[in-house]
């Protein structure tokens, strides 16, 4: 793509042209220099959208819930961008992206933009370019961006790094209390949703989750790319202002029940973040984390360009033959690349 074509596409996308938005998402998904040029052009126009992450195990009803949330936001006259991630097959590199099946009612609304993404080898529940796709939609003026992760288990927690508000979706009978107190995905929840609440066991699930929250008596926050526990229930003082106990809500997305309450809880979380200064702090952490990630990736790319392919292969052979250990091998390669520069 030449520069003037890219400038045109960016200008069109900023004006809301859907074809241009779709093209730009493909470009950032592809990665490389073109992606970087696009992202640096749109970055000044980002930061306005409320990004809401939706994660949870496969089959808990994430897509259906996303569709219902989108409808609720449309009633408030807000435009909605949706990025839905499904896994890439590790064997063929292909993927079946099926989240649109549950979103068919939204397909022709001109104020909703839905994009399906394959993980393309990324772990952590998102694709490498999911945040970049959300940036494109943010710059194009979508007010709310719903990001649906792959069906996640207990450690796909990347979504908490990119979303302002993270919903963790559970369903009744999805495990005993020990599941609820294990570390991992529940700890990143800003709001916990027990979906399919018409099934038996919904109240028990809510009770188990509430009990887990009582044990925690605090909440975790990302800080410098790590999860930190923030003190919760303290008598008086500033600490209380900084505590957010994730509400546990029951929904039945298929019937549209409990969605109003969920939308209100999401709004309350955004307001809490703004008032407590957490919003600012999270933006700060997000920027720092993103910068580190880009540095790591770019440095690696530059390094690999300088090391001849055969040298890399030979080193691998040495390591396999136990003639060299991988740690000194890496140091030697870096030293060699520096000499070449």
């Amino acid at each position, binding site marked *: 793509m030449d520069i003037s074509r890219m400038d045109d596409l960016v200008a069109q996308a900023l004006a809301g042209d859907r*074809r241009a938005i779709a093209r730009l998402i493909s470009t950032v998904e592809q990665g490389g220099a073109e992606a970087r040029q696009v992202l640096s052009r749109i970055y000044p126009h980002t930061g306005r959208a409320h990004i809401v992450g939706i994660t949870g195990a496969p089959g808990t009803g994430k897509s259906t819930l996303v569709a219902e949330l989108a409808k609720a936001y449309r009633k408030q006259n807000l435009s909605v961008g949706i990025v839905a991630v499904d896994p890439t097959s590790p*064997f063929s*590199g*292909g993927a*079946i*992206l099926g989240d*649109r099946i549950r979103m*068919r009612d939204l397909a022709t609304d001109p104020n909703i933009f839905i994009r399906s993404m394959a993980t393309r080898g990324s772990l952590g529940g998102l694709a490498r370019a999911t945040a970049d796709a959300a940036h494109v939609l943010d710059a194009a003026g979508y007010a709310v961006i719903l990001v649906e992760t792959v069906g996640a288990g207990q450690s796909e927690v990347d979504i908490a790094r990119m979303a302002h508000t993270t919903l963790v979706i559970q369903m009744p009978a999805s495990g005993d209390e020990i599941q609820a107190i294990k570390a991992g995905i529940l700890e990143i929840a800003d709001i916990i949703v027990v979906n399919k609440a018409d099934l038996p066991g919904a109240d028990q699930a809510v009770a188990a989750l509430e009990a887990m929250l009582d044990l925690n008596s605090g909440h975790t926050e990302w800080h410098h790319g790590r999860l930190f526990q923030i003190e919760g229930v303290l008598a008086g003082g500033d600490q209380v202002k900084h505590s957010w106990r994730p509400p546990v809500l029951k929904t039945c997305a298929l019937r549209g029940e409990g969605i109003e309450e969920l939308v209100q809880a999401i709004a309350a979380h955004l307001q809490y973040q703004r008032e407590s200064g957490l919003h600012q702090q999270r933006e700060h952490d997000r920027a720092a984390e993103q910068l580190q990630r880009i540095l790591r990736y770019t440095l690696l790319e530059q390094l690999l360009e300088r090391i001849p392919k055969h040298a890399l292969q030979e080193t691998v052979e040495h390591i396999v033959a136990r003639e060299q250990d991988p740690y000194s091998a890496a140091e030697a390669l870096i030293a060699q690349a520096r000499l070449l520069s």
Partner: protein
Amino acid sequence: MVRERKIRVLIAKPGLDGHDRGAKVVARALRDAGMEVIYTGLRQTPEMIAQAALQEDVDVVGLSILSGAHMTLVPRVMDLLKQMGLEHVAVFVGGIIPDEDVPALRCLGVKGIYGPGTALSDIVQAIRQEVEGRE
């Protein structure tokens, strides 16, 4: 850090018949051939299909039609794609298509028409040739 361009395919079932086994089998075969398949499910209107093709920035749209309504549905989809500036998207049709309708569909610009018994590898190859030949 290999940046391989993935072929993106939208598989859609326009119209009212509920037989989606063929569409699912094709979707699975394309996935196994390394493509990214956006599967939209049953009872899609031509408007839904064209919008999805636009938002997903696909290279190919595959329509599965077993209802006999292909001479109404396919022209409508082709028309909408054109209106949206998506002339480059290759359209393939699968399902029950009588031989006498094939020339008319070809004339509309449909790139391939596949009935029951088609080898999946033929479909994979046709899509690869169409997309890679264009670049």
